């Protein structure tokens, strides 16, 4: 380490050189203090949105799914758009914690915990939509193959919709286990520094009697690696299977072998967009700039640039194949997307997902927090509209002109979408209040490594 500048080989992942005790203090202290006024304002807004969504969902379930605009031929419009949107958001967490763990990308440590939490909350939001779409959600368990009194009549294992159910339940379970296991050492830290008895009890229950023994750590590292190894193909499989909901149908604009990689890239892209939005806010509000540094934001910006370009490449491939493939219906569907009544949505999607991320080629823009914040918001908007474009434009111009229809969301649909954002932010705000947003034990490992590098070990 003497001939090479060590900062090239080991880029700085922490500002300054905090001691282990300082790391605990910096990350755990915000949990002891009374929440700030801005936290209360955000929480009130989120709970209000959640209440609005709950009221709309109640009305929808009691009245019938006609309130959801399902009396039209565009039956999959809003709810499946929202479902795919939220599932996509839920992809960044596992990508960061699993794939980047396997690739030994150390910068992930500062952002993995909050990204994983975001994954869990986003998958919860996603699950709402198919459930409500059923119309009678109390029969939701019918989608699982269980021994029933109707034969037993089994579910259709050839249907991508069933694959979806299994993939998403698996994804939710494994992500939850991964998140919780990753938190146990930190919960023990919180338990041992808690002053209030109820906090000591609560964290005591959750930390399962963790004592930091070497034997447990050895098994713990093995378990983390195994879960990462399993979650890596899982995360790729989930959005591939979601895309098969579309790709295995024969509808123009959906029936494409391109769909699985296209959806996975889009999911990572939208997930990183949301992580970026949330972390820029979190690091500011909770004063964690020392741990979530500009370098972290820049690394995420690079991933946005790569995945955004991949998504853009898929858009162009779709267009090319529509022309080159010689299928008249396919060609008409894409011509309709780009110039038809929903052209505004198509070009909004193109702008936000293909053109805007290209700004991040510039180092100056990539390291400017306000620019990154605006770009991440636009990515969220663009990726929501991508799903809207795919679903609505293909459904509103079917093979039969008699089933052509224009689609416009109802009040109930908009209220339920608002409610899902309410649920997401309510969960996220509670998470930043009660659990450590940064994995303290992992940061301590990095701090030790940084110390060795400085001392020339």
């Amino acid at each position, binding site marked *: 380490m003497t001939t090479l500048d060590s900062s090239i080989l080991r880029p700085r992942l922490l500002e300054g050189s905090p*001691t*282990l*005790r300082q790391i*605990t203090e910096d990350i755990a202290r915000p949990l002891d203090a009374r929440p700030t006024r801005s936290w209360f304002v955000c929480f009130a807004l989120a709970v209000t949105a959640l209440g609005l969504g709950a009221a709309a969902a109640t009305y929808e379930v009691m009245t019938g799914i006609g309130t959801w605009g399902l009396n039209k031929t565009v039956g999959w419009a809003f709810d499946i758009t929202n479902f795919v949107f939220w599932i996509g958001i839920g992809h960044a967490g596992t990508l960061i914690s699993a794939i980047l763990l396997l690739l030994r990308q150390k910068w992930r440590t500062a952002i993995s915990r909050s990204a994983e939490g975001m994954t869990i909350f986003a998958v919860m939001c996603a699950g709402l939509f198919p459930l409500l779409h059923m119309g009678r959600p109390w029969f939701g368990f019918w989608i699982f*193959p269980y021994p029933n009194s109707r034969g*037993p*009549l*089994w579910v*259709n*294992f*050839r249907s*991508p919709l*069933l*694959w979806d159910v*299994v*993939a998403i339940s*698996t994804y939710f*379970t*494994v992500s939850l286990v*991964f998140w919780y296991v990753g938190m*146990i*050492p930190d919960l*023990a*830290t919180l*338990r*041992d*520094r808690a002053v209030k008895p109820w906090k000591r009890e609560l964290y*005591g229950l959750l*930390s*399962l*009697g*963790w*004592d*930091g*023994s*070497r*034997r*447990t*750590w*050895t*098994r*713990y*590292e*093995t*378990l983390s690696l*195994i*879960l990462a190894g*399993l*979650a890596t*193909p*899982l995360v790729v*499989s989930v959005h591939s*299977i979601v895309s*098969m909901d579309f790709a295995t149908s024969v509808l123009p604009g959906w029936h494409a072998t391109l769909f699985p990689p296209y959806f996975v890239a889009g999911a990572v892209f939208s997930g990183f967009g949301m992580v970026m939005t949330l972390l820029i806010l979190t690091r500011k509000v909770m004063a964690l700039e020392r741990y979530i540094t500009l370098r972290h934001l820049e690394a995420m910006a690079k991933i946005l640039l790569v995945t955004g370009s991949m998504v853009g490449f898929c858009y162009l491939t779709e267009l090319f194949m529509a022309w080159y493939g010689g299928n008249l219906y396919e060609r008409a569907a894409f011509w309709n997307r780009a110039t038809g009544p929903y052209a505004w949505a198509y070009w909004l999607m193109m702008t936000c997902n293909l053109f805007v991320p290209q700004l991040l080629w510039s180092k100056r823009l990539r390291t400017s927090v306000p620019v990154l914040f605006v770009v991440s918001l636009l990515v969220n908007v663009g990726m929501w509209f991508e799903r809207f474009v795919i679903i609505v434009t293909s459904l509103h111009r079917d093979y039969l002109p008699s089933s052509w229809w224009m689609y416009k969301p109802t009040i109930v649909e908009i209220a339920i979408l608002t409610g899902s954002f309410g649920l997401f932010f309510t969960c996220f705000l509670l998470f930043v209040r009660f659990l450590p947003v940064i994995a303290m034990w*992992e940061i*301590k*490992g990095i701090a*030790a490594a940084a*110390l060795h590098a400085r001392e020339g*070990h």
Partner: protein
Amino acid sequence: MGRELLVATFDHDEDLLASIRAARREGFAVEDAFTPSVVHGIEDALGAPPSRLPWITLAAGCAGLLGAALFQFWAADFDWPVNVGGKPPNSALAFLPITFEATVLLGGVATAVAFFVRSRLSPLAPPRLAVPGVTNDVLAVVFDLTGAEPGREPALRELLAGSRAREIRKESA
């Protein structure tokens, strides 16, 4: 029978590792080490074997794989074959996604459960900390001195002091 333990605390993981290596060279038995974070190389320093958890993953993953594949085949082919869009009853390729997901689900969950059981982690387990602060900023090593010759303990204390131990304390358990 009472056990004689010597607990040494450190500030840095390098010192902890150095003391473990030195003590083992001198033939002292290391009972356990307690750290707030993963210390890389501690298994090598202790000569500890790697975890056997991957075997659980393999077994549970295989069970998930076989279970899901056979169940789908049985349900769709034998128990109640339903003609869906003229697809053959045994649409083996279409059974792959669920088979894969079941493999991952069982493998992952079983490994986590095995980890909890093996490490005796449960909501009711009381934390028995070797030293206060091992979940914050203290690294600790526990040596077993039960039945050691009288001269051994001062030798160990000297060795530990030489590798920058912050505090050395004797305990009986």
